[in-house]
């Protein structure tokens, strides 16, 4: 009998062995602020002096390079792919490989491509690796859950009732996967509310600062994200 094996998953844990903590920013609906928060957290951890990586796993909606204003970067090829630095963050994204064209792929293809990049990306030593997840519990999300069972899940939701309802159901799936979930982050908050791990308030300056890192770090969105980074860093349960 002939056995056919995909060799790639065997090295993924080795590739991440120098990474102390992996935080997957999820949200179960589109547009709740996952990408913005992933970028802001990465900038905040870097500002705090941590070695930080950011991996944009939302292949079809890749936007972290636009938020950070990280055009014209490309990984260096050595014994794998070394992610280039964007504002001090080791940054990996599928947009390096798409020549500015739209990435329209089925879920199975995205899952396969995610596996490929986890196989060949050399992250080295990192204190934090932030994963910007695609919306929903999709093929891509399952792939990440399989490959990286040690990831901490940070779900984002907005005050909209529908978003909360969808999130609750999706979290059940993740909890079965035994992921650590410190709590829910409410984004675009308009008033103080209890029950959240952290609140990020609505900030009309945030969207306007996209693409300009020096402006991003002056917004109140960033200040809220910075507080969240401090809380995550102090959280002994993670």
């Amino acid at each position, binding site marked *: *009998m*002939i*056995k*056919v*094996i*995909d*060799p*790639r998953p*065997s*090295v993924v844990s*080795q*590739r991440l062995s120098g990474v102390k903590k992996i935080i997957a920013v999820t949200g179960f609906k589109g547009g709740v602020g996952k990408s913005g928060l992933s970028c802001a957290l990465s900038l905040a951890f870097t500002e705090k002096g941590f070695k930080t990586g950011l991996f944009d796993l939302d292949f079809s909606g890749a936007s972290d390079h636009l938020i950070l204003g990280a055009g014209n970067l490309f*990984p260096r*090829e*050595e*014994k*794998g*792919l070394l992610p280039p630095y964007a504002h001090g963050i080791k940054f990996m994204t*599928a947009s*390096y*490989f*798409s*020549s500015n*064209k*739209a*990435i*329209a*792929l*089925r879920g199975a*293809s*995205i899952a*396969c*491509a995610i596996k*490929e*990049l986890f*196989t*060949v990306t*050399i992250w080295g030593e990192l204190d934090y690796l932030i994963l910007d997840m695609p919306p929903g519990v999709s093929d891509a999300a399952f792939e990440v859950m399989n490959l990286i069972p040690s990831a901490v899940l940070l779900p984002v939701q907005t005050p909209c009732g529908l978003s909360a309802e969808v999130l609750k159901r999706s979290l059940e799936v993740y909890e079965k996967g035994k992921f650590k979930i410190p709590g829910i982050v409410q984004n675009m908050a308009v008033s103080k509310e209890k029950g959240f791990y952290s609140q990020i308030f609505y900030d009309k300056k945030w969207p306007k600062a996209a693409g300009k890192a020096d402006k991003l770090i002056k917004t109140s969105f960033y200040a809220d994200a910075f507080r969240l980074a401090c809380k995550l860093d102090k959280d002994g349960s993670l």
Partner: protein
Amino acid sequence: MHEWALAESVIKTLKNQKKRVSKAEVIFGKLQDIDREIFSFAIEELLKQEKDFRPVIKICEEEAVFECISCGMEFDLKKGLEDAGEKENVHFLPEMVKVFIKCPGCGSRDFEIKKGRGLSIRIKEK
């Protein structure tokens, strides 16, 4: 040179098999266009670090075959991917072929890579 990272995954996978592997075939899907020389060199170097693990590894190539999900047409790589940048992108991330080429029958980008995508291992088991 990221062939190294791929070669590592091959050695690790062979070592992880429950039954000791003495012979294996490594299939190169032509879409990924892995550099055979660099890959073989990496395998040699990696095996030097092993004490008594010395499997015979044979490399075979597999042509890339696509099948359009919209119209059912089967096609290959003969036309398409002329651009060096696009070729390199597909070398790193084979799925990107769907960003750069279309089905020659109906123009759809919704096609399946049926064969010859990237790296796989074949082992004979008794």
